[in-house]
């Protein structure tokens, strides 16, 4: 087991692209080797050592037994944990866009808020966002057919608009409220919203959305199917979205 701690030296305004900060890339590296790993700052290339103080405790070459702890002001650090397959990252504060994009395994914990596209096109693993999440949690890239396909994202606070857009598999749980159109064009997987949601399930063709806190603006293409018990609560069950050429194999459960 090894613990790599990256402490951001100072706040920045021009964002850092840090897709190289993953257990897969940093496992087994010495402090100096980690400091030399490339990050991109605006239009110039830099290294981790330019922005972070680095310490390594313990040893091991295996990403699965590597934990990365990130400290300091990370609000302008994008793409943390991109494509990671194992191990864990703990972000002790807020982080910028695309955290855990393409993630395949392992775990990311964001102690604060995560900006948009957390878990974009995720395949596996787990992301816990203890604060709020931005738009497009677990969504697709522009023009792409499928967003998140596997794994789990938990948002303890609120989430923004279009979460789980084009989600094809996996699970998103939001403890708070969400913005407009969660689960848009959903083709599989599950979204659970404990709070409220606006227009959930637009153009969904498969998969399941549970909204416990009530819906603002129910879409017109959903058919009421009766009531259903879920975890002791009585929920109204709808199927839809019939707007999509009358298919409507998606399930929407509303508290």
């Amino acid at each position, binding site marked *: 087991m090894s613990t790599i701690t990256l402490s951001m030296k100072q706040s920045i305004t021009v964002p850092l692209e840090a897709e190289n900060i993953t257990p897969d890339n940093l496992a087994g590296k010495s402090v100096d080797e980690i400091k030399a790993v490339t990050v991109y700052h605006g239009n110039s290339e830099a290294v981790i050592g330019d922005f972070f103080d680095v310490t390594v405790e313990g040893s091991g070459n295996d990403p699965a037994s590597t934990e990365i702890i990130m400290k300091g002001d990370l609000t302008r650090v994008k793409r943390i944990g991109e494509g990671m397959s194992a191990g864990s990252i703990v972000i002790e504060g807020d982080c910028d866009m695309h955290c855990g994009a393409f993630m395949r395994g392992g775990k990311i914990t964001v102690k604060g808020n995560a900006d948009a596209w957390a878990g974009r096109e995720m395949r596996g693993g787990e992301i816990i966002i203890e604060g709020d999440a931005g738009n497009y949690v677990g969504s697709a*890239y*522009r*023009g*792409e*057919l499928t967003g998140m396909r596997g794994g789990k994202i938990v948002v303890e606070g609120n989430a923004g608009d279009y979460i789980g857009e084009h989600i094809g598999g996996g699970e998103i749980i939001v403890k708070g409220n969400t913005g407009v159109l969660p689960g848009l064009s959903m083709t599989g997987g599950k979204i659970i919203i404990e709070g409220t949601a606006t227009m959930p399930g637009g153009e969904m063709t498969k998969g399941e959305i549970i909204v416990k806190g009530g819906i603002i603006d129910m879409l017109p293409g959903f058919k009421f199917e009766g009531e259903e018990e879920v975890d002791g609560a009585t929920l109204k069950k709808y199927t839809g979205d019939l707007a999509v050429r009358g298919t409507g194999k998606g399930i929407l459960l509303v508290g």
Partner: protein
Amino acid sequence: MTILIKNGVVFDPAQGIDGEKMDIAIDGDKFVEDVSSPDEVIDAGGRMVVPGGVELHTHIAGGKVNAGRIMRPEDGRKGRIPRGKLTRACSGFSVLNTFATAYTYARMGYTTTFEAAMPPLLARHTHEEFEDTPITDKGALVLLDNNWMTIEYAKSGDLDKLAAYVSWMSEASKAYGIKIVNPGGTEAWGWGKNCSINDPVPGFDVTPKEIIKALAQVNEDLGLPHSIHIHCNDLGHPGNFETTIETYEAVKDIKPSSDRQVMHATHTQFHSYGGSNWGDFESKADEIAKYINKNDHITIDLGVVMFCDTTTMTADGPMEYSLHTLSRRKWSNHDVELETGSGIIPVAYSPKIGVNAIQWAIGLELALLITDPWKMALTTDHPNGCPFTFYPEIIALLMSKAKRESMLETVSEAVGKRALIATIDRELTWSDIITMTRAGPAKILGMSDTKGSLKVGADADLAIYDIMPESFDPTKDYKTIEDKLMRTVYTIKGGEIVVRDGEITATPHGRTFWVNPAGKKAEAARDGMLEDLERMFRDYYTVSMANYPVQDEYIPHGVEIRTEVN
């Protein structure tokens, strides 16, 4: 600048040279007999030396290609390469940006590329993109078959006026030749309908066959370098091989004006289908090949399908919509007033889907069953069958039965039942391949004086691949073909070294060839035609006739080819 290429193993089918060790000399932008004290000597060291590739049917520039780029950012992100010292940033897998198109063709040894479908009203767009597509020489085929003027003249049989119209449009759009795409069917798509070859076009009492015959006759009356270039009716429909053969038959009696075909039928794979629905869909490549082998007035290109997620784009609007209803991903369509249309959708060809696997087989079968390589050009109808970057793998498949057998194991068993590929033993030779990618397409385009050959006086376009033909067995070592044909050791374009060891070394502007048909045939009925055309602009177009023709500013590297038939 003079260059001497020594010790190459040369394939130049136009001169009957089939793997001979010899030197090639370049002076300026032409091949010459010999050069004394050359500025640069390239020792090919026994590697394969061939003419620069000639692509006679590709979709690389213009409105519909760009609509594909705009519609597919997810495709754009697949091919990104940062800018280099000489090169601009690249993007795209099936819808490449113009720079990626140019560099990739050049790296693969291609030096001439023809955009196969230019709507006249949007011609400026194609030419603007050509200017940002460096290195290769280019030309565009202009869509003239669904134009109201053409349809009216085909109906009235006034071929002199049609000749005047074709001539005026060729100059106005700065086009190289006449393209026909689903004649009548694209006009019918203006009402959401389609036409087969003998259906009257809605609103016009004339059939597609009559349109085809009229344009074929006028093409020869004007003595254009290329023949009509046709995308037949019923593309992609099960059972369409009969329409295809009927289309070939329609022009059998028309006499070519030069030593070439009367009709070039494009992406024939998509037109060689048997069956009556997707369930009994089958290959009829044998029927098509039989016809081509027996007749000399038709040439084809293949339009090979390979398994990938690509983008289909064509002026055949109704076909694209019908294909879209099968996959329902996203669909763009752009009908062009009085002239043509277009449709664009993403398509993922899967080896596990029977229909796709049979399509894959048909493209290869055509190449293996047609005996004369001069009658067929290698194309993928980029990006419709797959991106042109699949050429090396397709060539490996055509040269190696072993490669085909290994691939057959991975495709749907429908191929064994309803295609012929598994029963064919033929393995093409280097000479076949070089004919199908150089000498043949150059001859089909009517450019054999300057393109597709290393002969003295031709344009000094040449490729050297890291393959030693004298000690290389393509039937066994097919993986090397796939690897080495992707990146040349040298590509020389117009006497300039543009690629060395697979890297771009220079990015000159390519030229744009366009044909200006003059002479009595073109001009006899011009006044009457112009009256008709002025009426079309006054009453039906939404741009002024004065703003319609492509201005000279758009072809700063244009090469005018004047034909004159009196």
